[in-house]
């Protein structure tokens, strides 16, 4: 059922050498548009993200990066264009949002942990109440996730007692507990100090090694250069340029990309 879409986009996407599989892309956006009142945030974004890839979306503030991400898991409905995620038509008004969100995890800049629940409870809540899974099984998985992010000793701490970096790692574990195939990261390191940024990015890199499709909106150019399979530069609501990081960072085609990167420190 997905073969058609796969063939259509296989030609359009220059596949980076690291690409693990070449079957249908995880996410395909075609001419996506979105306005908030008079301000046009997305002006026809087209983007294809292969399965298992790490894609970094970079660009100036206000270029629509976060909105782009929120359109992928239907937190923000699009005005027009199509968004396909794992073959699910996200732009369809009859979209089954819950089915979509079981596959797509999202982590936010401000962590957004549930402050009235412990770290462990934060991780366990959705699998128990949304997926209806057995509490003991979920607890075992949650404990494994917390030890993977090296926060098992904080399992019974409330978010208020954790540092920003710790909260963010718990937020990632909370998303992973739903066993998503795609993870969205919305400037997840923007509120953190450099040491914490490192911790969090190490966790993201870990996921990428596991083959989870990761899409990051980020200002961490070093991370984008070192870890991303694909870098995508957005400006004024369109994707100006996309390609492998070595191309974007060393030899971008578009003058806007060059100008933006000229202002960025690594």
């Amino acid at each position, binding site marked *: 059922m997905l073969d058609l879409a796969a063939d259509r986009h296989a030609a359009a996407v220059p596949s980076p050498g690291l690409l693990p599989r070449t079957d249908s892309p995880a996410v395909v956006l075609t001419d996506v548009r979105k306005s908030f009142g008079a301000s046009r945030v997305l002006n026809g974004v087209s983007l294809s993200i292969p399965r298992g890839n790490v894609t970094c979306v970079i660009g100036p503030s206000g270029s629509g990066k976060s909105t782009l991400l929120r359109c992928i898991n239907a937190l923000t409905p699009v005005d027009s264009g199509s968004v396909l995620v794992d073959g699910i038509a996200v732009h369809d008004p009859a979209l089954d*949002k819950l089915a979509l969100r079981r596959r797509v995890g999202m982590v936010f800049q401000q962590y957004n942990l549930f402050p009235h629940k412990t770290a462990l409870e934060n991780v366990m809540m*959705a699998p128990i*109440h949304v997926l209806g899974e057995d509490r003991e099984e979920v607890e075992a998985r949650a404990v494994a996730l917390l030890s993977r992010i090296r926060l098992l000793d904080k399992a019974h701490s409330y978010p208020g007692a954790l540092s920003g970096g710790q909260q963010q790692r718990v*937020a990632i574990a909370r998303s992973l507990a*739903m066993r998503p195939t795609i993870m969205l990261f919305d400037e997840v390191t923007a509120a953190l100090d450099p040491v914490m940024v490192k911790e969090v990015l190490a966790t993201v890199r870990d996921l990428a090694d596991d083959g989870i499709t990761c899409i990051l909106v980020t200002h961490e150019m070093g991370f984008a250069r070192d870890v991303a399979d694909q870098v995508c530069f957005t400006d004024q609501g369109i994707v100006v340029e996309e390609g492998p990081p070595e191309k974007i960072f060393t030899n971008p085609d578009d003058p806007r990309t060059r100008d933006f990167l000229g202002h960025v420190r690594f």
Partner: protein
Amino acid sequence: MIAGDGDAVGVLATIWKWAPLIGRGFLLNILISVLAMAMGTVAGLALGLGQIAPYAVLRRPAQIVTQFFRNAPWLVLLFYCILLLPYQMTVGDWTVPMPAWIKATIGLALPVMGNVSEIVRGGIQALPQAQWDSAESLAFSRRQTLWMVILPQAIKPMLPPWMNLYAVLIMATPLASIVGVEEAMTLTRFALSAENRSELLLPMYLALLVAFFAYCYPIARWTARLERRFAVKH
């Protein structure tokens, strides 16, 4: 008009004589306030959730009902209920009598409902939108998000205004005396007319004021303490 020691003792003895009766009346004030608060809170919670419903067909009526009962004088609502509600209600084979105090309770529950609705709406809307976003992206349904994520966090900040409302309510219960409910105020007037001594007027009403104060002040202190505790962090 100089009150001697003998007079003061006499006044105290008279108050003491009537205290059991007026005390029982005061228990009715408390009962009315607790029931009206319970009814108003349940109805107000439903109405408040209606006010934040994503569907305008639910939201608009909830907003209108809320504003109507929040901005109506309590005494007029009380009169309205006394006049509007029947003496008894028949549900199937059951006939339930509706004494005046029950009607008064319903009459007082209505403004409580309107105010609780606003407390619920405000408490929920004061939470960061990000909490909704993160719950939604974990595939929680709207209902689950509300009951598991939003309300548990919103209840703490809702508590102080809710308790304030209760204090206002208990102080409004003497309004029921106007519609003939035999609560503390009615019984105080009854005692005064039985004694028929004008020097008793001020002391007897003062005793009633003290009774209300003794009941309300601890609640006010407790509310203030909760307010301080919840004010700082989210």
